[in-house]
């Protein structure tokens, strides 16, 4: 890895990278690392890809990638070892991959997914295949200014911005990125190319803070994970609900494949001839009928309802119990792909209907919200309402016209007010 040029004076942990310098920065990275970033392909899908030439692809930092980058740590199919048989007997070749990589543009949910993988693959017997890849991979997180349609990372306490766990975190400030370094290797990476960065000023810091606040106000969904977990612990989900969800499950395994925290795998052999071949492991999904089926046919989870139940108990209860966090990062990808609506978003809403009604301040008025946020005073509000009677303008516009508050603050507050769905429209199906 490159070291600091010796000047190092500007390597604080808060920096600015102007967007016109981004590609040059990424080009430098490709010299020492395999660079992985979200790329918009010709089908219009954004996926994490290995980038050999920054200028030949369209890096997409707007849309959340369809899949998390988990395959760069645990490929969908990977070789554990190769075997070979000859007259002297069996010989084996252990697979190893410790390519130094930089993953650029991970979303907070994805970084949190990798942090969860860290727990799984390091506890007990250390998984060398995972750890070899993880060891030399630098994570550059991109916080989300605009949560997606099905995103609920804020409820899962894993976004939209991270407070730990990243090597580097970027915040989009329009013409520039606000750059934070977390783990030392993030700092080391930047130190090599300090000329791309300038230290952040107080204005930058304030602006970044506003972006974070604004983003947090934009979530359509607010879910109460604790309430959902309690319902599972207390066995309050009626058997009929599991049955119904089981009926709607198509056994496709998609929820597990797109999930940044699902890690279950199968192991199988792939012979290339009578004498040689490889032992592989591949992603698996607990919703598959054969997942727990034994040779001979006995299956402890024969029914789809049992498998669905197990999936949610695992993510919301067992992992919470074991690691103190649920193994859902709120990325919403299962909600994107599950056409049976047995995704985490639908599930938590379904079992917590009552709770969400209390949570969502759907019918609060803008004036009240602005007051509560300390953005205007009661006197301002009274004055604006009085004026509004004459002008007929919306309250927000009236307040802006009177210079009492700026448009951004209104937008943020309105976002908070409008984007959290009302109770009736919130419960689908």
């Amino acid at each position, binding site marked *: 890895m490159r070291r600091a040029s010796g000047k190092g004076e500007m390597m604080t942990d808060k920096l600015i990278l102007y967007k016109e310098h981004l590609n040059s920065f990424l080009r430098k990275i490709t010299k020492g690392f395999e660079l992985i970033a979200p790329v918009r392909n010709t089908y219009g899908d954004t996926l994490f890809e290995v980038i050999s030439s920054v200028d030949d692809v369209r890096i997409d930092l707007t849309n959340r990638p369809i899949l998390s980058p988990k395959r760069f740590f645990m490929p969908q199919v990977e070789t554990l070892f190769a075997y070979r048989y000859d007259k002297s007997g069996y010989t084996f070749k252990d697979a190893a991959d410790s390519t130094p990589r930089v993953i650029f543009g991970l979303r907070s949910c994805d970084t949190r997914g990798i942090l969860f993988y860290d727990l799984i693959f390091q506890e007990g017997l250390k998984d060398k295949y995972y750890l070899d890849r993880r060891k030399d991979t630098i994570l550059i997180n991109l916080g989300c200014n605009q949560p997606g349609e099905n995103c609920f990372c804020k409820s899962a306490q894993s976004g939209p911005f991270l407070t730990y766990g990243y090597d580097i975190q970027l915040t989009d400030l329009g013409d520039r990125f606000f750059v934070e370094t977390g783990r030392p290797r993030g700092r080391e990476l930047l130190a090599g190319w300090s000329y791309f960065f300038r230290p952040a000023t107080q204005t930058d810091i304030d602006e970044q803070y506003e972006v974070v606040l604004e983003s947090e106000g934009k979530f359509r969904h607010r879910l109460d994970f604790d309430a959902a977990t309690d319902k599972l612990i207390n066995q309050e989900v009626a058997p009929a609900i599991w049955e119904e969800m089981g009926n709607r499950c198509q056994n496709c395994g998609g929820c597990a494949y797109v999930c940044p925290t699902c890690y279950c*795998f199968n*192991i199988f052999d792939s012979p290339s001839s009578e004498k040689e071949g490889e032992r592989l492991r591949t992603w698996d999904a607990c919703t598959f009928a054969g997942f727990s089926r034994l040779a001979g046919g006995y299956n402890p989870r024969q029914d789809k309802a049992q498998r669905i139940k197990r999936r949610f108990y695992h993510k919301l209860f*067992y992992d919470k119990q074991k690691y103190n966090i649920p193994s859902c990062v709120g990325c919403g990808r299962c909600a994107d792909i599950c056409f049976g609506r047995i995704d985490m978003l639908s599930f938590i809403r379904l079992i917590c209907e009552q709770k969400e009604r209390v949570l969502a301040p759907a019918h609060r008025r803008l004036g009240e919200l602005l007051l509560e946020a300390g953005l205007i005073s009661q006197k301002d509000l009274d004055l604006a309402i009085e004026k509004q009677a004459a002008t007929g303008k919306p309250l927000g516009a009236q307040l802006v016209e009177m210079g009492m508050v700026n448009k951004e603050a209104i937008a943020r507050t309105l976002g908070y007010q409008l984007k959290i769905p009302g109770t009736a429209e919130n419960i689908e199906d």
Partner: protein
Amino acid sequence: MGSPSPYLPGLATIMKIEEQTAMEKLFMLRPNDGKPLGHKPGQFVEVSVFGVGECPISVSSAPNKKADFEICVRRAGNVTNALHNLKAGDVIGIRGPYGTHFPVEDLRGKDLLFVAGGLGIVPLRSFINYALERRKDYGRIIVLFGARTPADRLFKAELASLARRPDLEYLETVDVGDASWKGNVGVITTLFPKFTIDPKKTYAVMVGPPVMYRFAIAAARAKGLADDHIIVSLERKMKCGLGKCGHCQMGPVYVCQEGPVFNFAAIKNLEEALS
């Protein structure tokens, strides 16, 4: 890099194959490195037939100073079918031993009630032979063995010699008899009225098909056994054996790590354990 992969098996050579029934064969294995497996009764190994795959199999022999050990395998899936097609001299892969073992030390001085349903005799045989090699360390030993039909009975000669021992009580049954069968007919719980136990001193150690547990546990309880005097071994799909792959989990428990041997009292309320 550094440490070798925990998924990489050691090699073992098949020394001898004994056909037990039409479905089961007993394999005598010798580790190629000459080192004993180091297992305890109740543990399992991951057996590889390279090119076909890997599956968990209980060790059937009692631990001893020699490196050789035995597995008894029912022809049930891809790997076990492939195993059945092998011959003496062939080399297979072995990882392990894995999992918990029967509490052979803790049960010293206790009366042992073994309840073996069908293939359940395979892991129990390891404990039974272990106990017989240390006969005076244990109190009474009662062995119940149930098979589907007389032809399905495993270890026939061995069990017959157990039946002749004065220091062991052996009772057997079959679900369905045939013309030659003169013994008990009925499920394994029909053997329970034939003996008495001292519930304070006795521990039941049960291994059998999933359906057996509910009834055998009820019968043991009816004899006055407390739940923590009942030891079971549960079969799950222990694919990796390392507590990672997820297949063997029941509730939050990795059976390959916290099992397959469990004290019944510890899992009686665990969802998915014994349903």
